[in-house]
């Protein structure tokens, strides 16, 4: 089942990144060197000119014998030694990691990678040139990279116009970096990937990722059927037979907590969570009996469509009892000229503003299109909302709601033709003819929305924000939008392809993001709790997962699944925390919308209780950690690995280790050491900001 990757093909068809990267430089380039490179571009060109133009080997390369070594330039210095990197413990029956020393990139693959990941240094694609023993490329800013006899050299402004080439590492050493979007070269890389791709890393997950490589691991996740649903979980508990449960929303939170914490299909649930924050349905906005079933069915719907097609998801959401209730499609009546009554516009507006195209025209890279006057271009007008609302008339529950049984809560809405508007609908350049039947009108409307060029970048960017980083570069958004537009087999809207593009993009997998101040996101409180619960094998004493509604920021988590206060989710994709450095630098930070003086304190108090096993029902299993209690550094390293892929800075790490070590390792000492290691790591800002 494992796929061995013995060598890197030059133009791999299966890589997430497209073969020809677009010219615009990405903000996720390395550090100050990029700025120095840009500033010194002119003198770099002069250097080349002096060498007789672009076809000749730069003179510096000829002085290879005098080369100096600097392995920090393109990141090799950060890669663990090959022996340690490849020593992944094998799981029974799982072949050894393919990230073995045999994976040596070709010169071309190395330079392609450098262009993608260090676009600040190498700002456009250049063709290979050969001048024995070098294969090399020259760039417009005067930088040059070349490979000779298995070693990689650079020249130009990026190394301060050195007269001798700088040896930045061997092709062998670059193997793990060049392959970083294909496999994890050590446990921390695997844990980092799992932090993006699941609801919490476990030892088994790390082993599997290292053994299989990312693509094969993802393929397994995509192929696996969804885990047993929330609806069935409620039925198994007899909630549908409980006469009280119809009107008292028993287990309304439990049904989703159990799935989020215990379901084995962690990537699918992670994506369902992300979708639940786009296609928001919140408890406060639904009505009628059997709310727990209504929300359970909705979660099951999101989970089952997470790797399917966006068009199918859109229709399923539109006709779900939960969304139909939440945004008023249910019972929406056609216009009545006699009374002046008009169709409810709620769903028509939000399906455009929040679920498909947003407010303004976007380019494929997610940036706003501007008109001739330099203004953003509205995607839709108020009149279009009013007209589109006609499409969503005549739909209702498939039967009378009753306390008798909840079955209605998962049956798609059905059409009452008599209540469906017969007026024509013009919106987004399409006209649905007057008198079109409701089902056909819905199909035409959703097809129109689905076909809009905005959907790929609009939805793609939000999925990136939920999974990897708040401020993706235009290039990253473009690549994910491209995957939405075409999954490689000519299909538009393939969410599995989109998820794969998000997770395997160089921007997410490359080591560059680890050191870049703009990469990453503030972990939303829900993810912090779930990652803790999964990494430390939390279980429910009662089996009911009685976490309840954790929305209160002063005394609890400050966030709870399916409890968003409005259709706008807990935080907006475009939220800018006013009065901060992010604001001045034009960055968004969605999760900061719920970060304030109350919630930062509430989080620490809540996590103190959870981490020290004081919750009445949901308790961690720290057996593996207790085994390391006698070695504070190892204990902290393990906790750090699972929770944040080792991303604590050295000073923070030392604080934690020293604090743990200060607790005597006798009596309840080991337990307190583990509690403290977990608590302190989860309190650290280096943990809270995920990269």
């Amino acid at each position, binding site marked *: 089942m494992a796929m061995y990757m013995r060598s890197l093909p030059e133009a791999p068809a299966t890589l997430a990144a497209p073969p020809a990267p677009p010219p615009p430089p990405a903000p996720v380039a390395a550090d100050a060197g990029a700025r120095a490179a840009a500033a010194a571009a002119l003198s770099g060109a002069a250097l080349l000119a002096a060498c007789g133009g672009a076809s000749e080997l730069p003179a510096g390369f000829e002085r290879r014998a005098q080369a100096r070594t600097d392995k920090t330039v393109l990141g090799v210095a950060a890669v663990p030694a090959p022996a340690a990197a490849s020593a992944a413990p094998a799981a029974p029956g799982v072949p050894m990691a393919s990230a073995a020393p045999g994976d040596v990139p070709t010169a071309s693959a190395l330079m392609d990678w450098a262009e993608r990941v260090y676009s600040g240094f190498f700002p456009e694609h250049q063709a290979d040139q050969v001048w024995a023993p070098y294969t090399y490329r020259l760039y417009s800013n005067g930088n040059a990279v070349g490979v000779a006899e298995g070693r990689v050299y650079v020249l130009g402004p990026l190394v301060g116009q050195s007269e001798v080439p700088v040896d930045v590492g061997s092709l062998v050493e670059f193997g793990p970096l060049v392959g970083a979007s294909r496999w994890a070269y050590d446990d921390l890389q695997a844990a980092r990937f799992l932090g993006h791709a699941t609801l919490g890393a476990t030892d088994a997950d790390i082993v599997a990722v290292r053994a299989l490589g990312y693509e094969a691991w993802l393929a397994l996740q995509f192929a696996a059927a969804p885990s047993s649903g929330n609806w069935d979980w409620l039925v198994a508990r007899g909630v549908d037979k409980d006469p009280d449960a119809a009107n008292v929303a028993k287990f309304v939170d439990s049904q989703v907590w159990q799935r989020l914490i215990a379901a084995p299909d962690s990537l699918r649930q992670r994506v369902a969570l992300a979708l639940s924050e786009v296609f928001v349905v919140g408890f406060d906005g639904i009505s009628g009996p059997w709310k727990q079933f209504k929300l359970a069915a909705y979660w099951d719907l999101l989970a089952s469509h997470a790797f399917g097609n966006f068009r199918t998801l859109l229709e399923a959401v539109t006709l779900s009892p939960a969304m139909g209730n939440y945004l008023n499609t249910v019972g929406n009546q056609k216009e009545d000229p006699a009374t002046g009554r008009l169709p409810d516009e709620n769903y028509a507006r939000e399906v455009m503003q929040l679920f498909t195209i947003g407010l303004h025209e976007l380019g494929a890279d997610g940036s706003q299109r501007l008109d001739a006057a330099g203004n953003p271009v509205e995607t839709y007008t108020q009149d279009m909302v009013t007209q589109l609302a006609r499409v969503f008339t005549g739909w209702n529950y498939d039967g009378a709601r009753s306390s008798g049984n909840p079955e209605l809560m998962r049956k798609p809405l059905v059409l009452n033709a008599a209540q469906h508007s017969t007026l024509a609908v013009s919106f987004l350049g399409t006209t649905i003819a007057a008198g079109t039947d409701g089902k056909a009108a819905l199909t035409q409307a959703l097809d129109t929305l689905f076909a809009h060029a905005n959907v790929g970048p609009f939805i793609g960017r939000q999925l990136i924000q939920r999974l990897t980083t708040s401020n993706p570069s235009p290039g990253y958004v473009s690549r994910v939008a491209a995957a939405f537009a075409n999954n490689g087999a000519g299909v538009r809207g393939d969410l599995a392809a989109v998820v794969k593009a998000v997770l395997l993009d160089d921007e997410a997998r490359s080591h560059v993001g680890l050191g870049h101040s703009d990469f990453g996101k503030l972990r939303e409180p829900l993810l912090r709790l779930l990652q803790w619960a999964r990494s430390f094998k939390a279980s429910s004493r009662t089996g009911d997962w009685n976490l309840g509604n954790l929305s209160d920021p*002063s005394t609890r988590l400050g966030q709870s699944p399916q409890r968003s206060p409005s259709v706008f989710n807990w935080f907006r994709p475009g939220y800018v925390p006013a009065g901060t450095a992010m604001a001045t630098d034009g960055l968004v930070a969605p999760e900061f919308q719920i970060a304030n003086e109350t919630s930062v304190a509430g989080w620490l108090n809540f996590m*103190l209780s959870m981490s020290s096993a004081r919750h009445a029902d949901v308790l961690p299993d720290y057996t593996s950690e207790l085994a390391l209690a006698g070695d504070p550094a190892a204990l902290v390293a393990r906790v750090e690995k699972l929770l944040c892929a080792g991303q604590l800075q050295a000073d923070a790490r030392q604080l934690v280790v020293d604090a743990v070590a200060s607790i005597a390792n006798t009596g309840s000492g080991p337990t307190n050491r583990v509690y403290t290691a977990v608590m302190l790591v989860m309190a650290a800002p280096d943990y809270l900001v995920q990269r």
Partner: protein
Amino acid sequence: MHLNRLPDLARRAFLRRGALLGVAGAAAPWAMNLSLIGQAAAAGSPTDYKALVCVFLYGGNDYGNTLVPVDNTHHAQYAAIRGTLATPQSQLQATTLTPLSALPDGFVYALAPQLSALKPLWDNQRLAVQLNVGPLMQPTTLAQYNARSVPLPPKLFSHNDQQSVWQSDLPEGALSGWGGRIGDLMLADNGGSVFTCISVTGNAVYLTGQSAVQYQMGTSGAVAIQGITRALNGSGSAQQALRSLITASRPAHRFAAEYTRITRRSIDAEAQVSAALAALPALNTSFDGSSQLAQQLQMVARMIAARSAFGVGRQVFMVSLGGFDLHDNLAENHPGLLSQVGNALAAFHDATVELGVVDAVTAFTASDFGRTLSINGDGSDHGWGGHQFVLGGAVKGKRFYGTPPAVAINGPDDVGQGRLLPTTSVDQFGATLASWFGVAESDLASVVPRVGHFSPQKIGFV
């Protein structure tokens, strides 16, 4: 901690420096302002105190059923449009408002029955009604709107953007709100106090300025971090480590740095806030324990009572209530929301009387937008202009301000379906409040940038 005052000249120099600081000031306002204050001599204590309280109604409050035309002519028009959602004339008698100056065209309004708690405040001239106010870039006629011949507010009818436009003059992503910009001007006189702009609701742009930051607290007060106030898992060292960990500067990543800043403010403020609140005598005025809005306003009242502990002379507060986006179930849900608003505002007023600050505190309502006057069966949809309330001892109450809109659909005052085209702008509304609060004429444009397009700039309700 005693916070110094700056004499006037030093204040102006501080403001100029503050403006130049720009980002740097915004990034570390607490520390930065303290260091600047250190350069100025201490002055005396404030001679007066004023508080502005923004009561934001999230979702877009339905103006149609909030302030209802009750005279025969206009009620009939209203009832014809609102159908099953119309409040009968008979139910509006007790809350009919008789203003000091009669409205034109025989307009008589009544408060929704559930706002009855506001009626005595109106009668005592402490409540004013601002008719048809909303975001405008400049005075806009219906013809200009239809022709799109003048600049219009961005992203009309979108919740999150209109919330932001109301609070800041800009759509979502705005870098400061006009409450925060007022705070900027008051910051020096407050000695740079972090208790200048206080939110008892969630994060919102309204209270953030260039230098002033929003201090957020809950309805129970400031939250203490248990792990740093006692031994952590039995370890004093771990307790110390936690404190170091969460307050150590994090220059390597902006997000981590900002999160740390919030934590530091939380810790620094908590001790002060908790001590100040604990020292207060209990309020006699009772607030409804089941109403989030009432609980928030109660905390505002308590913070006002504690103002001398913070050494502040000017404070801007924000509270909120959600749930107003009544596309459906308007008849079922709107009354309860209005009831909360009326009762909470009345209790707040009473508390300010009890505290002897009724003339010093002005509260006002705001909302994303009004809604359509037409209905969709059981609710109304997104609109634009709406009616708002202003309340306080300094308010020139028992009056209407602005122009009563025609009760019509596709009439002379709406942009379709009874969505009101505002005749008063948020800039004018804000300028009026800011001016009362102490903002100088010449500074009004820094608070509400477009006020210069309108005449008069101030409305006169306070």
